[in-house]
């Protein structure tokens, strides 16, 4: 079982879109896939039209394997299931800080509850917290969307520094450029600079800015399922292949 986290310490960078479309790509390639919506806002659950889980509250996520597996729902796509979000996930940090071995709790829960899956994709909330430390430890790789702008660049540097300072494996970080507008000089320059600075951290594939991706909110489905196979659909497909290569 491989655990792939979609994470960014900055919001609005296309993290949930990456999680949903990557999960779809893994499942379509025949991998039994579970997407775990750790973000209490429940955006990936919304995209898959799955209602929030009512019973997987508070510490049960980490303590009760049966509850965890009972909360799993099939999506409308083959090989792809989801653990929908719950509003109490917003207090994960509080629960985790009270629990023993608080940094490896997530890994334990996923290994026990998600053992029948080949791939687990985590859609993570955008902050650095006890939960994200759990994510960094549990995940085999951390896919980080980066908009090629100054502010995003800065938050990415903060993330790399956090990994370095906390002796976390930096090679787990797989960044890719998201919402890219090649017509903008700022985007082109930022991409060139960051790739030079972090040659091993960045994947080759990039996801362009696209109204098709924005329409996911209306269509409530992965982009590849509603006729966007060529543009953004293909971009996520390439991202999937790059991630598979690095795994």
């Amino acid at each position, binding site marked *: 079982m491989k655990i792939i986290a979609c994470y960014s310490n900055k919001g609005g960078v296309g993290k949930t879109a990456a999680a949903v479309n990557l999960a779809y790509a893994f499942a379509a390639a025949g991998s039994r896939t579970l997407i775990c919506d750790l973000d209490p806002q429940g955006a990936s659950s919304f995209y*898959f*039209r*799955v*209602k929030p889980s009512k019973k997987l509250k508070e510490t049960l996520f980490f303590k009760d394997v049966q509850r965890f597996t*009972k*909360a*799993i*729902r*099939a999506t*409308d796509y083959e090989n792809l*299931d989801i653990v929908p979000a719950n509003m109490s996930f917003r207090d994960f940090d509080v629960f985790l800080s009270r629990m023993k071995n608080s940094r490896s709790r997530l890994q334990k829960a996923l290994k026990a509850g998600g053992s029948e899956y080949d791939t687990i994709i985590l859609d993570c909330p955008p902050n650095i917290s006890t939960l994200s430390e759990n994510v960094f430890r549990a995940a085999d790789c951390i896919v980080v969307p980066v908009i090629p702008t100054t502010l995003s660049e800065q938050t990415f540097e903060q993330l790399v520094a956090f990994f370095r300072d906390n002796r976390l494996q930096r090679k787990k970080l797989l960044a890719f450029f998201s919402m890219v507008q090649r017509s903008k000089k700022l985007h082109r320059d930022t991409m060139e600079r960051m790739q030079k600075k972090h040659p091993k951290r960045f994947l080759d594939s990039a996801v362009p800015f696209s109204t098709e991706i924005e329409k996911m909110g209306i269509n*409530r489905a992965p982009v590849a399922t509603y006729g966007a196979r060529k543009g953004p659909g293909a971009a996520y497909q390439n991202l999937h292949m790059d991630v598979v290569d690095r795994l």
Partner: protein
Amino acid sequence: MTKTDCYFLPSKAAQNLLERHVEKLSPVVIDDAPPSGFRLVDTFDGEVRKTGRLLFATGNRLQLLSKDTGFLHQVSSRTDGYVADLDEGDVKTALQNISPLRRLQAIGETDIEEVTLAFVDSAQKTRVRARVWFMNASGGGSAALVVLQGLRGYDKALNQLRAHVLASGGGSFSDGALYKSLFPMQVVYVPKPKIAVGRKEAAFDAANDIIHAYLPIVRLNEPGIIKDIDIEFLHDYRIGLRKIRSVLSLFSEVYSDKMTVSLKQRFSSLMSPTGQLRDLDVYLAEKDKFYALLPKRLHAGLDALFALFANRRAEQQSILAKHLKSKAYTQEIEDLVSLFAKKKKLRKGKNAGQPALEYSRALIWKKYGKVCTIAANIDDQTEDEEVHNLRIQCKKLRYLMEFFAPVFPKKEFNSILQPLKKLQDNLGLFNDYSVQQESLHALLDELNTNQKGENLEIAQSLGALIVVLHGKQLQERARVVESFAKFNDAKTKETFQALFKKQKAKA
């Protein structure tokens, strides 16, 4: 593979499934495949269906739907015939429990249109799916099959849809309703009819009911014998006639003497042209067993012997087929069917009015007494003739008990029927070995008077077979005393008394 949630559904109810809400879920068609032609394949006695499965063939493809394993597919150059004749594959493996003596055949043709439905909630999220097979048979019959597909985490929706399907007339596809809807003109063949004999029913009516139930079985097997589909048609035909004949001989004085004699004679005449073909069928079906009895150097003789049997069988089959197609036969069997359907011309005997319970008690008790008396006199030195007599009386006892089984408490009844069956197995083998020796002797005599080149080789093998069969017969003979003691233990005696002697004890 997981268990399949699959149901038969009348076509109209299936059509409604496409249009109506199930609780708060709305149906959405997500796939609709154009109709294509299939043959529904089964044995004559519906073994595939009765074991909870349906077998479809199209071109050289076989598709097996099973409650336990879902769908299995394979390609086979043959899609009918014996299971052994199919190419190797998943379907063939799954069909290993079908009788090797029964041939698979197309029981009808149907178009199948497969529609896949998703039942979605208010957010258009699929909660449960269903595959619906709309089947339109070439003869005008129609039916549908619904396979429910639950989704993880949505058990409630699956339960709601299942309840809806069942409430709309859905049911098991293995109880015959599907075949009846698709092929309404075909009679579903039931080789062992359930005949409800009531405790107070007059013995005359019980006898008529049994004969009336077995006559259609006899008739339904005629086409299969004529077309020589498999040997079980003749076997079942003969069982039907034998049951009828045993009613006539065992139910004493329910019909007038004259009527009994006449009926016995008429049914014997129907049976007699079938004996030779059945014997040859058994030899050929058990060919491998005979080869296993003799050393390899005698197999060449067996090859010639079985070639001879095969030729004779072909002759006999053609003679019997001709007989069954003859006007005389058709007239006779139709007259008998009509006699037992109308009952007007049946003349009653002095026991005709006796209630079934008392009547059968007396008959069974008397027969059991006879069996015990014969058995008591059998030891290692007794003539074989007496052992044969014991076998015949046991067979009569078994038939009587089976005819009247509905009248007695099931548990106690079965507790004595099972040991009786075991005893009969022993006596049956003893008889088979004996009869086979006799018929092989007769064949040997025939060959001696009919000297030809290969006959010597056959004669050698025949001689060896007779010796081996004789040895086997002796083995079975040696077990008889012990077998009977096992059958007639204290508990059996007690149960026979309690069930059949009760009335006398009270008096």
